[in-house]
């Protein structure tokens, strides 16, 4: 890649016509300005805020240096939030990737009705999380919710799904998997399409069983897609979950579903501790940055493709 860039700098092909030059400049100048103002400046501004005791009310925002970060390091609630975030991220990503893989593998050989099936699995992806969470909250309602009513037929006592510190997070994770499975399945199906049919035919002629086909051909060749799904899932998971949790539990009970995104919103816009919230958002930024670098190292994603 570096060689590429170097070539482009020294290359002889930079003899653009004036019209092309104008075209590029008219398009790029507003773009660069936009990104500078809306994306890059806020990062520095955010770091600046995180060094102050910043509140929307009151005009003084005293400089406190790294105190906000020190406070975080000592805050047991923040550790709980980080634990919740990781719990949701890893359980959700791995279970979701697993379920999607199963669905994709059994959906792949199907021809008749596959479009309808894909559509059904894709429905929750199109639905806003706010609306989905509203439905799920109703279905998981302790006394009148559908799930507990159905469970009562097999003699299971009502479970307070969203009011229990044990069950609230798993409920939210299951809803997240329901909401995302359709998208992941399509990614897997595209990956499965890329595996040449000849491999299977050759293996079948050699007498391979369908289990052998799955474990010796499909899964090894699908490994890059699986790891793509897992890594992007984990990266997205750290900053995700806000809408579902905001609607279903509000972070409760007893902060058992309070994740980082909700915590940042709560501190910044309800408690108005913007400095403290900014320092948390920087911790999030650092985590995401490190994970992304790890991804580049692991996958060597070739953006030139």
């Amino acid at each position, binding site marked *: 890649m570096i060689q590429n860039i170097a070539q482009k700098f020294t290359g002889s092909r930079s003899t653009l016509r004036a019209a092309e*030059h104008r075209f590029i400049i008219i398009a790029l100048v507003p773009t660069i300005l936009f*990104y500078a103002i809306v994306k890059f400046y806020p990062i520095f501004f955010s770091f600046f805020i995180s060094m102050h005791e910043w509140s929307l009310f009151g005009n003084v925002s005293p400089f406190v240096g790294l105190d906000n970060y020190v406070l975080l390091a000592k805050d047991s609630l923040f550790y709980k939030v980080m634990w919740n975030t990781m719990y949701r991220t890893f359980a959700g990503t791995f279970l979701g990737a697993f379920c999607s893989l199963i669905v994709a593998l059994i959906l792949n050989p199907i021809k008749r009705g596959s479009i309808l099936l894909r559509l059904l699995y894709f429905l929750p992806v199109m639905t806003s*999380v706010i609306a989905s969470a509203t439905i799920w909250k109703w279905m998981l309602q302790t006394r*009148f919710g559908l799930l507990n009513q159905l469970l009562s037929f097999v003699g299971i006592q009502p479970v307070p799904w969203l009011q229990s510190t044990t069950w609230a997070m798993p409920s939210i994770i299951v809803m997240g998997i329901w909401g995302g499975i359709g998208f992941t399945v399509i990614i897997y199906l*595209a990956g499965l399409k890329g595996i040449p049919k000849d491999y299977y035919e050759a293996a079948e002629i050699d007498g391979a069983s369908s289990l052998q086909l799955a474990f010796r051909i499909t899964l090894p060749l699908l490994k890059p897609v699986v790891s793509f799904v897992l890594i992007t899932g984990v990266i997205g998971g750290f900053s995700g979950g806000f809408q579902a949790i905001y609607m279903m539990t509000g972070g409760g009970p007893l902060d058992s579903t309070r994740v980082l995104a909700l915590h940042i919103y709560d501190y910044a816009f309800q408690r108005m501790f913007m400095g403290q919230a900014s320092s948390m958002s920087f911790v999030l930024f650092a985590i995401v940055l490190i994970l992304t670098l790890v991804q580049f190292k692991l996958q060597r994603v070739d*953006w030139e493709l």
Partner: protein
Amino acid sequence: MANQDFVGIPSQVDTRALNRGATDFQRLRRGLLINYLVLGAGAILMVVPFIWMISTSFKPQAETVSFPPRLFPINPTISNYIDVFDRANMGRLYWNTTFISVIKTIFNIYTSALLGYIFGKFVFRGRDIIFYILLSTWIIPFEVYLIPLYLMTVQVGWADTYTALIVPEIFTIYAMFMFRQFMYTIPTELIDAARIDGAGEWYIFHRIIIPLSRAALFTLIAFYFMWNWNDFLWPLVVISSHDKYVITVGLATFVGEFWNQYGVIMAGASLAIVPILALFIAVQRFIIEGVVLTGLKG
């Protein structure tokens, strides 16, 4: 294992073709039946929440809390829907959300197509560096610039305006990246030929590049319209007057107010979901093929 069934077949017969026929047949009988059963069960789990939402939305309050649960209401009613329109100002929410989603989507797609074209088809100094710097913003979680962006919005006097909803999201990375990928399928010779014929750069972009990008264009329009329609956090933070609410924020507020009137809440959720689902089912062929087409090269 399938081969063993055909040991006795004379060598003149094309055993491979027969074999394949047999495995297909066996798969259909044993394998695919199981596939259909498992997928069908899964599909039921996927749609149960929607069905239950619609079922509840037509039930009077007393029936929503009755046992055992019933799929079809005994006394179906549309009063829940009337309630939602009356109390949640649903018409207004629809109009606001449609207006903002359409404008944002037009901006998103137009700027992305233009930049994708420029980064994909032109060679100029610093092109890759600029592209990768822009691309790097993709990984920044929204929570990181939420607070500063909000303070900046307040500073320039845009708080509680649609300008604040639209302007910070005019440009977008994902669609730009996808269009750039898509540009590799358009032959450069075509563009050069148009130039030789005297076509201007904007003419080429509008009349050649955009029409040729149709496949990517439709998919991205659908997805961006959906994302813009379902956007929540930024409108929640920026918009404070009720008459400017978008549908997600309106629904969240509504659910908070009518928390125990399940029929009314489910009617609200249906009204928020159904238009976008109907739109998507109408164009779904495009989308699912388009995800494959544009989504998975990298």
